[in-house]
């Protein structure tokens, strides 16, 4: 049986050559994918798997719920703040704690700052090399690069031929020293790279500029979080005090000088996004606008929990500035409401995941979630249990569970948020999307692609940078009106808590919808379940045979060279996957080099 059709509309054909990419590099954590390609090198079957077991839920059991944020912050290196925020929201929800308006504004500014930071770093430092060829940049004419720069972004201050020549020389020295550093492991002779050398040099230059600039964005979270690298969070609000007329000193409360500093960072972030990030997306996009693969579920089924509450403590769709809703079966005319408490809506399935449920025909809502490992390979798997050569996707094949919204496999992330926002007629989003499509002379369907995912992330960075300004103004106005409260500690003492409660906290992490479901019993964590963005996107097949978002996105993509699957990396990277929290990372696997096997 080589041909099957999935209920979510994909024709799978497993008869062609099998290509294995393990691990997929330049992502957080460890992931593997396998595809079958036909004689024309088109992908006709796709299997994505998280190859390690996660166990965050079980290490939190019995701990103090007020500490959970610190643990979730350590799951991985990139989502630190957003996991912490989700966690404190879950605890506040379960205990009925209202936070002050200032805390809401500050949390939003921190979360939006993370969005800008993460999107920028993702594009330039993890994703750009799927489109940009740094080795080709060595061939560029600096003068022509300068002209290109001035044409795509007249306001960019650094555009002289000498500037580009310097960067090119630096790059040359780096390449000649044989250390290639972050540029190693690329397929630099692959015909899938389409940019002329000048565009490559411009983009590599911005890779360095972004690396330099991103340090500033972090300072916002450092100021409000009180600590560099790992900001503090607090159940009931934020852990920073405000004294608007106070002196500057280490450990002193937030004062006007610090708020002004944050304002400056916001201005410069917006400037960078407008003058560098967005023009680069349009410039690079213009060379790849015929490469519209990778849409997968984005034009069919997308989900957004929403985030950024305008007023504190109201998490209803109407009050969230980042859109909430679900689109199914490609019907953009109808956006369905989403309720994370409804046991019928979000459920996790495990027929193709290495876990056991009492009844695997049914899904479980995260409040009733079970995490019980059950590792077994299917009869058609090749290799051994400890060294798998080929997975059997008819059986269990991933450590990632399969979450579904009313039974549908969904894509989450910036593109999903933008599709939901576009379908709802969200003013800013609609305008941004239409302007981008016009600039590239593309129809709206082009949005449902790898390129669309990458573009939506850039547009969202622009939106997030501007929204920071809104909450900054709101914060300052509120403080000036005499309200300096930042925390509500009324229910901080566990003696005031009921014996048994449950709650849910959600955010839109940079890479998609994120929620933590918690049960507290006798003041300790009784059950903690995280459904992270990459659980949605990296989901394996479910009991009905629906394929997940990564899998769907790889379908019907042309691969230039089977042994150099740059197209697969390009599309998987466009999701900004983070496997560190969706799976359990283990042991000394060592090499970062992607291993590609063609069978």
């Amino acid at each position, binding site marked *: 049986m080589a041909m099957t059709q999935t209920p979510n509309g994909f024709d799978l054909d497993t008869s062609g050559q099998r290509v294995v990419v393990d691990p997929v590099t330049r992502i957080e*954590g460890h992931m593997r994918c396998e595809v079958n390609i036909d004689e024309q090198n088109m992908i006709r079957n796709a299997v994505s798997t998280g190859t390690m077991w996660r166990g965050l839920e079980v290490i939190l059991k019995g701990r103090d719920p007020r500490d959970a944020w610190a643990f979730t912050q*350590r799951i991985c290196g990139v989502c630190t703040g957003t996991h912490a925020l989700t966690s404190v929201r879950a605890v506040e929800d379960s205990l009925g704690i209202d936070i002050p308006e200032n805390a809401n504004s500050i949390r939003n500014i921190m979360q939006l700052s993370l969005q800008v930071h993460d999107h920028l770093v993702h594009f330039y430092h993890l994703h750009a090399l799927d489109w940009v060829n740094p080795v080709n940049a060595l061939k560029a004419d600096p003068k022509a690069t300068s002209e290109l720069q001035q044409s795509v972004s007249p306001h960019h201050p650094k555009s002289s031929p000498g500037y580009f020549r310097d960067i090119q020389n630096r790059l040359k020295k780096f390449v000649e020293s044989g250390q290639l550093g972050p540029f190693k492991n690329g397929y630099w002779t692959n015909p899938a790279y389409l940019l002329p050398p000048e565009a490559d040099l411009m983009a590599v230059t911005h890779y360095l500029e972004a690396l330099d600039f991103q340090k500033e964005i972090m300072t916002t979270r450092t100021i409000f979080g009180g600590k560099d690298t790992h900001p503090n969070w607090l159940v009931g609000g934020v852990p920073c005090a405000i004294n608007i007329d106070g002196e500057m000193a280490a450990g002193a409360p937030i004062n006007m000088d610090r708020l002004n500093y944050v304002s400056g960072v916001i201005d410069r972030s917006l400037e960078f996004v407008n003058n560098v990030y967005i023009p680069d997306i349009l410039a690079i996009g213009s060379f790849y606008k015929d490469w519209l693969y990778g849409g997968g579920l984005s034009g069919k089924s997308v989900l957004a929990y929403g985030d950024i509450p305008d007023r504190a403590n109201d998490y209803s769709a109407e009050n969230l500035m980042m859109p909430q809703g679900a689109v199914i079966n490609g019907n953009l005319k109808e956006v369905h409401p989403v309720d994370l408490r409804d046991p019928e809506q979000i459920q996790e399935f495990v027929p193709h995941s290495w876990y056991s449920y009492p009844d695997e025909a049914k899904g479980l809502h995260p409040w009733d979630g079970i995490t019980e490992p059950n590792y077994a390979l299917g009869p058609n798997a090749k290799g051994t249990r400890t060294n798998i050569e080929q997975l059997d996707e008819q059986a269990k094949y991933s450590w990632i569970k399969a979450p579904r919204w009313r039974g549908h496999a969904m894509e989450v992330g910036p593109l999903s948020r933008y599709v939901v926002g576009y379908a709802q007629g969200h003013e800013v989003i609609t305008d941004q999307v239409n302007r981008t499509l016009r600039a590239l002379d593309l129809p709206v369907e082009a949005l449902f692609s790898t390129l669309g995912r990458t573009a939506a992330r850039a547009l969202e960075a622009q939106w997030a940078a501007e929204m920071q300004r809104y909450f900054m103004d709101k914060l300052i106005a509120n403080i000036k009106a005499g309200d300096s409260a930042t925390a509500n500690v009324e229910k901080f003492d566990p003696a005031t808590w009921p014996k048994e409660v449950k709650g849910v906290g959600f955010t839109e992490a940079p890479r998609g919808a994120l929620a933590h479901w918690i049960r507290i019993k006798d003041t300790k964590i009784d059950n903690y379940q995280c459904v992270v963005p990459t659980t949605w996107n990296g989901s394996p097949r479910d009991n009905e045979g629906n394929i997940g978002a990564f899998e769907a996105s790889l379908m019907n993509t042309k691969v230039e060279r089977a042994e150099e699957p740059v197209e697969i990396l390009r599309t998987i990277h466009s999701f900004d996957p983070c496997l560190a929290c969706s799976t359990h990372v283990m042991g000394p696997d060592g090499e970062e080099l992607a291993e590609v096997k063609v069978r």
Partner: protein
Amino acid sequence: MADTPSVLILGIGNLLWADEGFGVRAVEELHRGWSFPDNVRLMDGGTQGIYLVQHIREADILVVFDAVDFGLAPGSLKLAEGDEVPKFLGVKKISLHQTGFQEVLAMAEMLGDAPAEQLLIGVQPVELDDYGGSLRPEVKAQIAPAIEVALDYLARRGITARRRAQPLDDDITIASSEMSLARYEAGRPDAAAALRQGDARVLTAEGWRGPEDFEAEIDQLLSQPARPR
């Protein structure tokens, strides 16, 4: 290098993965027991990868504590200096952050700001594969010697630390008080509740070899009664 060099003492790794937490625990302990002049910065780098680039660029002298696979006996301390540092960090990607620290150093260098002097104080881990677990005794015992090495290295460069009369309390150190070593260890759920025995972690790139009797371990795991919920 400026007259007063800027010094960064950085602990890296993930606290949640047993001996992977060595770097962060070592720098926490150093901060508890010692005070430094203003040109010295101590930092819990966690698994922040690219986000650490700017701090490294600002440093003239970089001292890194980390758990690294040197292929030595578990619990051994191993030092690397200068150009050797990235080489060791690149051998095996122990840190779970995909942007290996080696790559972060390369990025600093590409920006023309690599620290002039670098010291890696690495420990060979005993156990990484214990999610939610703490440092193993052999590794914990290397914190004090590792600190001595760092102090000595800095003293030779004219940077002297002063021993605090009283070690700092957890809540005022750079440590996360919610995850201070004592609280982290004491609050751990027991092995049955956390399903720690024989977690089936497999399936990686070639080169990893499973336990001696993997099937038996899995069978034992599967034969256990369902976890109480």
